[in-house]
C-alpha cells in the first residue's frame, strides 16, 4: 500500500516529518490532585494523578522513596468496534509497566518517602500512538498535581513506511506493517527514558527513525512546556484576584 503519495503527502494530508495536531487541557477532574487530557490528532487520553498520599498497603511502603503505581486502561468506546477492554490483559499490563517506569524515572521519588503516587491513564479515543500520548498526558497530570520532577517527559512515535521515516503514526499507518518506535525523553537533560520497538529493522534505518522520533518528542516537549506556562499564568492570575 502507498502510505506516501508521489507528491509527498501522507494519507491524512501530512508530510512525512509532521506531527498531528496537539491539544491538551489541564485540570479536567476536580476531585483529583492532578489531571489532564492530551490529544494527538484523534488519539485522546485522560490521565489522573492521586498523591502523594499515604501508602494503602503497609507492606508496600518504602522508607526511602515514594511508591509509584500506574494503571492503564482503554475505554470500551475508544475504538470503532465497541468492545469491553480489560485492564488486566497482557497489553494493558505491559503498558502500565512501561508508563510507570517512565514516570518513575522522572519523579524525584526520594523527596517523598513513605508515600504513594497513583497514576490512572485511560484511552478515550485510539488512533495510533497511544503509548506516547499516555506518557504525555501523565506528565501534564503529574505537573498539575505538583509532584517534584527532574524534568518533564515528552514522548513521540515514529515509523518507517515506503522506505521513508515518518513521524507520529496514526492507526492506519500503524497497521501498515512497518516498525513503530516510541521514544520518551527528558528534553532539558537530553536523556532518553523510554525506547521501544517490536520489529526488526536495519541499524542505519533504526538510527534515522530514532532521531526522527526524538525530534518529534522535543517538539511535543515544547508544546507541553507552553501549556504548563499558560496554565501557571492562569493559576497566578486566579490567586492574585
Amino acid at each position, binding site marked *: 500500500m502507498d502510505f506516501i503519495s*508521489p507528491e509527498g503527502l501522507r494519507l*491524512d*494530508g501530512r508530510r512525512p516529518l509532521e506531527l498531528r495536531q496537539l491539544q491538551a487541557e489541564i485540570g479536567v477532574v476536580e476531585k483529583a490532585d492532578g489531571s489532564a487530557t492530551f490529544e494527538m490528532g484523534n488519539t485522546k487520553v485522560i490521565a489522573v494523578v492521586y498523591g502523594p498520599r499515604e501508602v494503602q498497603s503497609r507492606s508496600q511502603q518504602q522508607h526511602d522513596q515514594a511508591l509509584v503505581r500506574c494503571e492503564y486502561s482503554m475505554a470500551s468506546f475508544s475504538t470503532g468496534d465497541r468492545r469491553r477492554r480489560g485492564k488486566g490483559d497482557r497489553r494493558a499490563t505491559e503498558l502500565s509497566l512501561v508508563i510507570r517506569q517512565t514516570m518513575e524515572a522522572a519523579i524525584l521519588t526520594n523527596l517523598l518517602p513513605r508515600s504513594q503516587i497513583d497514576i490512572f491513564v485511560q484511552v478515550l479515543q485510539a488512533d495510533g500512538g497511544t503509548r506516547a500520548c499516555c506518557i504525555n498526558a501523565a506528565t501534564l497530570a503529574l505537573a498539575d498535581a505538583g509532584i517534584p520532577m527532574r524534568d518533564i517527559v515528552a514522548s513521540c512515535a515514529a515509523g518507517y513506511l515506503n522506505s521513508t521515516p515518518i513521524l507520529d503514526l496514526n492507526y492506519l499507518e500503524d497497521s501498515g506493517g512497518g516498525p513503530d518506535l516510541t521514544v520518551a525523553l527528558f528534553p532539558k537533560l537530553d536523556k532518553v527514558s523510554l525506547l521501544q520497538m517490536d520489529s526488526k529493522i536495519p541499524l542505519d534505518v533504526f538510527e534515522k527513525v530514532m532521531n526522527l522520533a526524538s525530534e518529534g518528542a522535543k517538539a511535543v516537549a515544547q508544546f507541553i512546556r507552553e501549556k504548563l506556562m499558560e496554565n501557571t499564568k492562569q493559576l497566578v492570575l486566579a490567586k492574585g484576584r
Partner: protein
Amino acid sequence: MLQSKSFVKKTRHGKVLKVVREHYLRDDIACGTISCTVCDNSKACLSSSSGQIIVFDTNVALHQIGLLENAAVSNVVVLSLVLEEVKNKNIGVYNRLRTICSNPSRNFFVFSNENHRETYIKGLAGESPNDRNDRAIRVASKWYHAHLGPTSKIVLVTDDAENRRRALAEGIVALSVHEYVQTLGNAELLDLIIRTGSEEAQTTGDAEDLRPSKRKVIYPEHKLMSEITSGLHKGIYHQGKLRVNRYNGFEATVSSESIGEEILIQGRMDMNRAFDGDVVAVELLPEDQWQANSLGKIAEDADEDDNEEAVGLVPDVAEAVTDTVAAGRAGRPRGRVIGIIKRNWRQYCGSLDPMLNSGGAGGFVHALFSAADRRIPRIRIQTRQFANLVNKRIIVAVDAWDRTMRYPAGHYVSTIGDIGDRDTESEVILLENDVNNKPFSKQVLDCLPPLPWSLAAEELQNPNRRDLRHIRVFSVDPPGCRDIDDALHCTLRPDGNYEVGVHIADVTNFVLPDTPLDEEASKRGTSVYLVERRIDMLPKPLTEDICSLRADVERLTFSVIWEMTPEAEILSTQFTKAIIKSCAAMSYAEAQARMDDSRLSDPLTVDLRNMNRLAKIMRKRRIDRGALTLASPEVKFEIDSETHDPLDVGMYQIREANQMIEEFMLAANVSVAEKIFGHFSQFSMLRRHPVPTPKMLEPLLLTAAAVAVDLDISSSKALADSLDRAVGGDPYFNKLIRILATRCMTQALYFSSGDLPPPEFHHYGLASPIYTHFTSPIRRYADVVVHRLLAAALGLIKLPAGLRDKALLTTVADNLNYRHRNAQMASRASVELHTLIFFKNRPTDTEARIVRIKSNGLIVFVPKFGIEGPVYLTGKKDTKDESDWIVDEQSQTTVSRDGKYRYKVLDKLVIHIEVVEPQPNRPKLQLTLVEQPNA
C-alpha cells in the same frame, strides 16, 4: 508547516463501522505552473503561457486512458481526487496514469486538490458523492483560473453533459472528449476515443448494430456478483483462472481448487465472453453432457473457417500438456462460465481482417481485428482510417463485451508497422510477450561508470580482490558472443590435484542496489535473444564491454575456485572477487578443434583436455545420480549479415566442449547455492524443478506404450535409465522419445528459500537437492541477486535492504519466472517467424515423424527444422465427416476406412512444407502429405 485545519472524514468500512480519519488541509501545495510567482515551483511542469491547461474528470481517465497516453495530450493537471477515484475503480488504469505523471516530458502535474485549503469542499446535504466530486473538480478548475489570472486558459474535459452545463454556468470552459480532440486537429487521435454509450448516441448515426430492433441477445447473462459470491460459498459455482487452449480458441480449461480438477469449457457460448487469463466463476454442466469423445479434433468449431491449428515450433516444456490431457481422458467435468470476477484485458497486437467494401475514406468503418495471440477472440473496432490500417500491424484495446455483441468492442491504440515486415513482426513478438525493448532511460545510463572503462588502481589495492591476472584463464562461448559472462581456468598443482576456477563477470560491482540501473534490470529480469537481435537486460557498455570477459583485457570477476583430485572429487571450494586477464575467447567449435587436434600440445590445449576429462567424470557421476538427459529440438539459423534474412536452418550442434562448459557452470551453481543457503536460509534465491506429476507424464506413457517402449517414471533415475533403454529401429528414435519426455516436464522456477521447505528445493532434471543461477549475471537478474547474496555471505558487502525482505524477494522471484518464460516464448516466436521467412521461397519436401494422432489428421514433427504442425487427412471442408478414418486410441493408430492407409505414432513419413497465403498478407506454413506408405 504545521498550518493545518482539522477536518473529519467519515467513511463506512465493511460492516457497520464508523471510521474517523483526520484530513489535514494545507496552504503549501504548489500549482505546478512554471511562471507562478506565489507557489514553490521546483517541481513545476505546466506552462500557462503556451496555451491551455487541461483538467479532466474520473470517467475520462478511466475510459480514455489510451488517449491520455498519446503524446499529443500535454499540459494537464491531474487532480488527486481523480487519481484516488481511478485507483479505487481500476488499479491498472491508475498505474498507467501514474506512469504518465512521472514522465517529465509529458507535462502532467498532480495537484493535491483534496488537501489544498482552498479547493477542498465538504459534501452538501443531499448531494451524492459523485455530484460532490464533480463539484470539487469544478472548484479546482476555477481555483486554477483565479490563481493564474484572467489570461490563463483552463479547459475542463468531461463527457458528463450535466457537469459541462454547470461548469459553463460557473464560467469554466468545458469540452467533451470528442470536442477536445477535435481542437488538437489530428484525425488519428479520433480513433483513440472510446465511444461510451451516451456519447455514441449523440455523435454518430451510423451505429447499425445499436438500433434496438437489431439488438439480439447472443450470450447468456452474467450472474450478479452477489449471486456468484454466495454460489461460490455454497459450492455450486467454482472459481478459477480461464486458460484458453493455445491451439484451439474455442476450448478452455479452468483449474478450480474447489473440485481439484480442471473444468473443461467448450465453445464460445459456454465461455460466455471470458478472455484468456480472466478469473471466472464456472457452473458445472450435468454429468451426461461431460465430454465423452476423447480425441479432440485439431480445430473444433466449423463456423469459423480460419481457426485451424497453426504450424509452430515444438513447445519446450509442459505447455502442451493441458490440451493433450484434455483430449486424452474421457468424462472430464465440463462447465460453463456464469460470471467474470476479474478481467485480464490488456492491449493486443494483431491486424484487421480485410473487408470487401471498406466504405468511403474518412467515414467510420466497423472492422474486425484478429489478434496475433490465437487465444483472443476477434475484436470489433471502429475506425476512420481503415484503408490505412488494413495492411498494418496495430495495437487494439478492449473496452466492453455486451450480451448483444458477438465480438468484444475495442478501439485502435497505435500502429506498429507493415504486416510481413520483419522488424514489425519482431516488434509484435516483443509486445505480445511483454518484453521492454525501449532504450534505457537517461537516469539508468547515468549509473554507468564513465567510458572508456579501465581497471582502477584502487581495485588492485583492494584486499578482498585477488589478483589472478597471471593465471591462464580462457572463455568458451557460442560463435559471435559479445556478452561473455563466464571464463575458466584449470591448472595442475604440484601435488597432482587440479585447481579449477570458474570466473563470472562481477556485474554487481557496477550494478549497485537501489539505483535506477538496478531497478530497470530487475524489471527486465533477463536478456531476450531473438534470431536477429538481442534485447539486453543491462545497457550495452556493461553487456558488451565493461563486464564482458573478453580476451587480453583486465576484468573484474566473482570466482569460484575448487581444488579437485584427478577423479574430479572436490576437496575445497573458495569464493572470491578477483581480477583476471583472459588469454583466449574461443567458440565451442574452436575449443573442440583444439582438443581433437592431436598435434597441438600447447598449455591452453592441455588445460582444455584436462578440463574435459574432469567434466566427463562429473557428468557421468551426475547421470548416475539420476540427472535426465533431455533433448530439445533447438534450431539454428544462418543469417545473412546484410539483409538479416535467414539463409539456412539446421539443428543446433552440441559438442563435447558445450557439455564441458555446462558441467562446470552446473558445479559452480551448486556450490554457490549451498553457500548462500548456509548463510541465508530464509532469503536465498534458488531454482527448483518440480517433479512432474503422473498426470503430466500420461501422454508420454501413452505414446511409449503404443510403440512398445516401457518407461519407468517412479523417479528421475528410473526414467533416465528407461530412456536410455528406449532404442527403436532407427537412430533418431531415442532422441524423439527424449523430446517427447522433455515436453512433459514442468518448468524450472526461481523461488525464495524462505517460502518452501527444503525438500521442495529439489531440482528434478539435474537430480540436485539444491540449485541456483550464478553464472550469467549479464543476462539474468537472478544471478545478480545471487551475486549479492554470495558477497554478503562472504562478508564483503552488507545485504541490501531489498534482499532482507522476504515478501519482496518473493515478488522478485515471481517476476523473474514471468520474464524468463516470456523471453523463452519470444525467442521461440522469433524462430517461428524466421522459419516462415525461410520457407517463403523454398518449398521443401522433408522427413517428418508423427507425434500425435487426432481424429481428422496427424500432428507431425519435422526434426530437421524443429517445427511441429498438423497434417490433415480429411479435407478441410468436410470436417463433420469423420468416418473415413478409424482411430485406435490405445495403440495411437489411425487407419483409413478402406484399410489402405495406416499411420501409427512415431512413424516416419515425408511431407511437403510450403508457405501459403489463404488471405492476402496473411502467410502461414502449410504441411501436406507427400508419400503415403501402405499399410
